């Protein structure tokens, strides 16, 4: 019980947030900046901080009447200037073919100019603004989803919330839209939030809306932990810079990554929520108190302090000493096959195996259909007896197989389950951002969980941590 109350001291509660952090560090004027999306966009842009491009604004009913809807591009996001919690946002992905008055929304439903007009009228009327006061509507460019996030996000774009205090990024959370949240990256509406290791930008624990902890993205087999967010350090710099520019001492910065332009700041939040603590399994108050009062001159220094204080140091250290990356027993691997075709899969890291093997179906997907076909024609895609293998060797079957340009070798394997006679193909693996040119042996891995097994031959640059 004592422990319980001692631990609870580390958490930031609503009272403490308002009284000890927002009140003294976020002046009214600065708060007004954060609540006004157009203003904060302008200020950020002036200070060379990337923001989604503004397309148009509608300030009055008169402007709405005279608005040229055809001037809008085929994809855009329509937002209320003082909206909150992602309410009142409409995102369209394209125009309907041969129709000038229809756009297509994320769920493939159509939206007409009339719908948009009535939505804008609602925005102007203040239906989505903080206090119900009249508001301004604006259109901005729609960000393109990063390929890496595609399997993780359900219709919509994930965003990254970073809390910055005293120029130091103290905590971060990746928010992934789900089916339940209707493509919105809002925890309250059922999105997934994952904690992030501040040093590496790798996701850690995760929560789903209010349902508590999860390990897999709902509806998929993808693990919520271990995803390395690209552009991590530049995002931390972006967030710290936004804090400096906005004059908000205690700030939540929402960043999304555009596949072309990289990280861009979506909005600033002067009253960041507290759920981030649950997603990170860490107390914000403890972190804020550690950063409070220390003198930090530059944002680079602030980012470094944040990464050092709130990142998993141990792992980084080990990697530095050995010069080898530490990976777990199951890792995401990107395969680059013929004609640059890329596929990402989860692979079993197995130090018990010498050579790596790939499932034949996956090999076909990578463009090695012909080689697989040839191999199957020799009736080799199954377990063979030792005598059969001996006969194959005697007949010099490998010579026949290697005639095919895609087949770079033939491998014989012997195990408790029996022997196999496999062909090898050349594929580049990207494991933990390290490219490895590998010869993969094709096997029949149907019924096994992982379509790819990485063996010792391809693991020379890694240390394996079985706890990971």
């Amino acid at each position: 019980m004592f422990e319980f109350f001692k631990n609870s001291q580390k958490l930031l509660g609503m009272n403490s947030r308002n009284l000890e952090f927002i009140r003294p560090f976020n002046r009214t004027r600065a708060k007004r900046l954060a609540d006004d999306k157009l203003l904060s966009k302008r200020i950020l842009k002036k200070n060379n901080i990337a923001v989604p491009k503004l397309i148009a604004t509608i300030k009055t009913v008169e402007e709405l009447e005279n608005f040229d809807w055809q001037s809008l591009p085929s994809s855009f996001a329509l937002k209320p200037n003082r909206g909150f919690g992602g309410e009142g946002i409409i995102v369209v992905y394209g125009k309907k073919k041969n129709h000038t008055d229809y756009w297509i929304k994320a769920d493939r439903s159509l939206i007409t100019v009339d719908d948009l007009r009535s939505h804008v009228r609602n925005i102007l009327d203040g239906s989505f603004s903080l206090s119900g006061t009249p508001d301004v509507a604006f259109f901005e460019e729609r960000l393109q989803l990063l390929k890496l996030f595609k399997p993780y996000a359900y219709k919509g774009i994930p965003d990254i919330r970073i809390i910055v205090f005293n120029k130091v990024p103290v905590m971060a959370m990746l928010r992934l839209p789900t089916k339940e949240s209707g493509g919105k990256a809002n925890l309250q509406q059922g999105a997934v939030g994952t904690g992030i290791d501040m040093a590496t930008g790798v996701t850690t624990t995760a929560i789903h809306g209010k349902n508590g902890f999860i390990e897999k993205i709902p509806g998929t087999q993808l693990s919520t932990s271990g995803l390395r967010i690209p552009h991590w350090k530049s995002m931390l710099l972006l967030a710290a810079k936004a804090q400096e520019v906005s004059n908000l001492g205690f700030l939540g910065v929402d960043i999304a990554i555009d596949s072309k332009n990289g990280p861009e700041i979506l909005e600033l939040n002067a009253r960041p929520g507290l759920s981030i603590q649950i997603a990170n399994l860490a107390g914000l108050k403890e972190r804020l108190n550690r950063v409070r009062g220390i003198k930090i001159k530059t944002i680079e220094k602030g980012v470094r302090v944040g990464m050092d204080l709130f990142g998993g140091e141990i792992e980084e250290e080990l990697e530095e000493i050995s010069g080898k990356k530490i990976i777990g027993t199951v890792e995401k691997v990107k395969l680059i096959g013929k004609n640059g075709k890329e596929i990402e899969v989860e692979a079993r890291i197995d130090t018990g195996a010498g050579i790596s093997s790939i499932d034949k179906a996956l090999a076909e997907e990578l463009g090695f259909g012909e080689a697989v076909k040839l191999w199957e024609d020799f009736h080799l895609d199954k377990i063979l007896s030792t005598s059969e293998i001996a006969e194959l060797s005697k007949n010099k079957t490998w010579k026949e197989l290697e005639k095919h340009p895609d087949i770079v070798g033939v491998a014989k394997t012997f195990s408790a389950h029996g022997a196999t006679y496999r062909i090898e193909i050349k594929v580049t693996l990207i494991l933990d951002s390290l490219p490895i040119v590998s010869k993969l042996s094709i096997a029949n891995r149907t019924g096994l969980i992982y379509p790819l097994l990485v063996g010792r031959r391809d693991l020379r640059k890694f240390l394996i941590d079985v706890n990971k």
Partner: protein
Amino acid sequence: METAISPIIRFFITEGVPFQTIILLLMLPVIATFIAFLRQVVGIKAFGIYTPLITTFAFLATNGLRYGVAIFLVVIFVGMLMRFILKPFRLLYLPRVAIMLTVVSLIILTMLVFGGNLRRTGLASVSIFPILIMITLVEKFVATQIEKGNKAALVLAFETLIISILGFFIASWEGLIGLLIAHPWTILLTLPINIIIGKWTGLRVSEYFRFRSIIKKL
């Protein structure tokens, strides 16, 4: 009931201030402090401070708690229902609320008529002001629905109801009324209490509950 009446209260009464009004005005700071305490220390939000306060007084002014609660529930229920009915019409905010107010008024009028018909004279004789107060709940409810969604609005309405019922019992507690009549100055105690609540930075009871799953793992 024989209670000591403070000279100052006696003076107020001789000056023509109704006794009931004096009690209500003295009770107001107590209820307000109670609501502030529930918000900051316990974590029950409700619709701000004004709505539960005014609802408490509406309950006090209706003849018995149950009619007050009945009217409250009808107002919230109609608010819910009308949102669904009016959604396809895509109306602007104020006309939409106006329609809701119309429907609520008509339904309460019907209730009163039925109450009279069933000889529930208590209901029919409820004075108009508490009814009007509760009808204004509709706007608060609708605004919250738009801002935070149906579920959050319902939760807040429920919390408002609970606070108002608790407030009702506090305000009609004989012991407290006796105290306020005998020692009206005790009301000033709410000031230091509010200063303490206003400086309270600890976790709210509701936050212990919200973070219970992670507190042990920190």
